[in-house]
């Protein structure tokens, strides 16, 4: 399985309208990603944290995957997920995440100030931490804050789409990626495309060699687009639909209890299944060490 956690949704606030042309462009990007071998794709809605969110939970998610891409999913076997990325500038203006996270599969934070970075590495209940790789990072990344964030289970995202745009953003991309890799000590890194158009999609071989040349060991590179990224999707789904992240009811085939690679997804209407997550020390990292008897 191959996962792309970042395909931008053509809307930057709730006020904007989505044009059919933009949807068509997104569909083309999805089909290209499918041709390149991706199986799981998250559509990313980026919005400012201080924005006014609609009160109704149903209005929170504008993507509406089932209605818009249901047929595409059925025909190609792609699995699509929704993701929200909150641009965090001033923490005092933000609001609680509990309601927002109900409506999306994955919740990510994009800090653009030092305060925002402190908040998102310590307190926020998120799955992913990402940065604007096309411009300067908000502050110098420290081992301590990033590693503690990774130990909490939050993954760091690298978006390779910036490397394919203009010279300036590519230059900034290289230096930013190097500092993210350094500060995380090679742990908990996932890779997403951030492809605005079909031409910005690349397959795993190319992306792996790019990130490998930027200093990430090659075994971590291939994991970053497969295992670790699917773990992010799993975490997101379990947040809403499980009891304490261990037991989930509903969904899937009867004798298939692999939730990570689940093609059906967790759906309330399907046959009930109970899944207990195993304590795999590789995936849990430091948490497993603490729990050892």
């Amino acid at each position, binding site marked *: 399985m191959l996962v792309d956690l970042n395909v931008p949704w053509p809307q930057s606030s709730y006020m904007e309208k989505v044009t059919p042309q933009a949807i068509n462009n997104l569909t*083309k990007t999805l*089909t290209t990603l499918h041709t390149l071998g991706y199986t799981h794709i998250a559509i990313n809605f980026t919005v400012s944290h201080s924005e006014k969110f609609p009160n109704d939970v149903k209005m929170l998610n504008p993507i509406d995957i089932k209605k818009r891409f249901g047929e595409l999913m059925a025909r190609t076997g792609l699995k699509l997920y929704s993701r929200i990325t909150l641009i965090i500038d001033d923490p005092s203006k933000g609001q609680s995440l509990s309601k927002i996270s109900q409506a999306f599969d994955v919740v990510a934070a994009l800090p653009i100030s030092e305060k925002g970075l402190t908040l998102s590495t310590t307190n926020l209940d998120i799955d992913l931490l990402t940065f604007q790789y096309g411009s300067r990072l908000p502050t110098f990344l420290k081992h301590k804050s990033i590693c503690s964030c990774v130990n909490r289970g939050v993954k760091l995202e690298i978006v390779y789409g910036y490397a394919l745009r203009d010279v300036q953003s590519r230059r900034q991309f290289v230096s930013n990626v190097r500092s993210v890799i350094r500060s995380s000590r090679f742990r908990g890194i996932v890779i997403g495309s951030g492809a605005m158009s079909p031409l910005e999609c690349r397959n795993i071989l190319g992306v792996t060699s790019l990130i490998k*040349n930027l200093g990430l060991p090659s075994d971590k590179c291939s994991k970053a687009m497969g295992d670790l990224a699917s773990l992010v999707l799993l975490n997101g789904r379990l947040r809403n639909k499980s009891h304490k992240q261990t037991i989930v009811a509903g969904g899937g085939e009867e004798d298939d209890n692999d939730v990570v690679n689940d093609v059906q997804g967790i759906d309330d209407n399907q046959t009930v299944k109970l899944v207990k997550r195993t304590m795999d020390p590789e995936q849990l990292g430091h948490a497993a060490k603490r729990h050892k008897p």
Partner: protein
Amino acid sequence: MVRLKSRYILFEVLYPPTDVNVEESMSKADILLAHHRASPADVSIKSIIQEVRRSLSLNLGDYGSAKCSSLLQLKYFSNRTSTGIIRCHREDCDLVIMALMLMARIGDVGGLIVNPVKVSGTIKKIEQFAVRRNSKILNLIKSSQSSQFSDNDFLINDLEKIENENENEND
């Protein structure tokens, strides 16, 4: 005596549909067909190798491009199937793949993705892989459409030809 170690990279040129409207009802085969198209005549062995060198010097500078160019060679490219094989030095294989990935156009032809598919140590294995892969894709398309394609036979013939040439060289 240690032999010169090289790597062969199989790549394909994809043309994602940018102008036409994508219908929701596109099947798997339609999507594959829309991406895999024959390359125009402007995309030739000469223009590709030029573009690879340009991409290498743009992204890696004088040092990187000079390092890679010692053994860089385009062994095969077919306009009809848009597939090709590049030979490079074993140590610089990653840099060449990176250069291929960062390419956005070949000569004057834009709107394409250069997609590295497979890396192998011998040209024989990579040819076998290319043939296998092509027939797999063709089966996918054929299973949903009844029309006949002869591209695979074309590729097999071509590859047999270069294989023979290689053997002649070795003799």
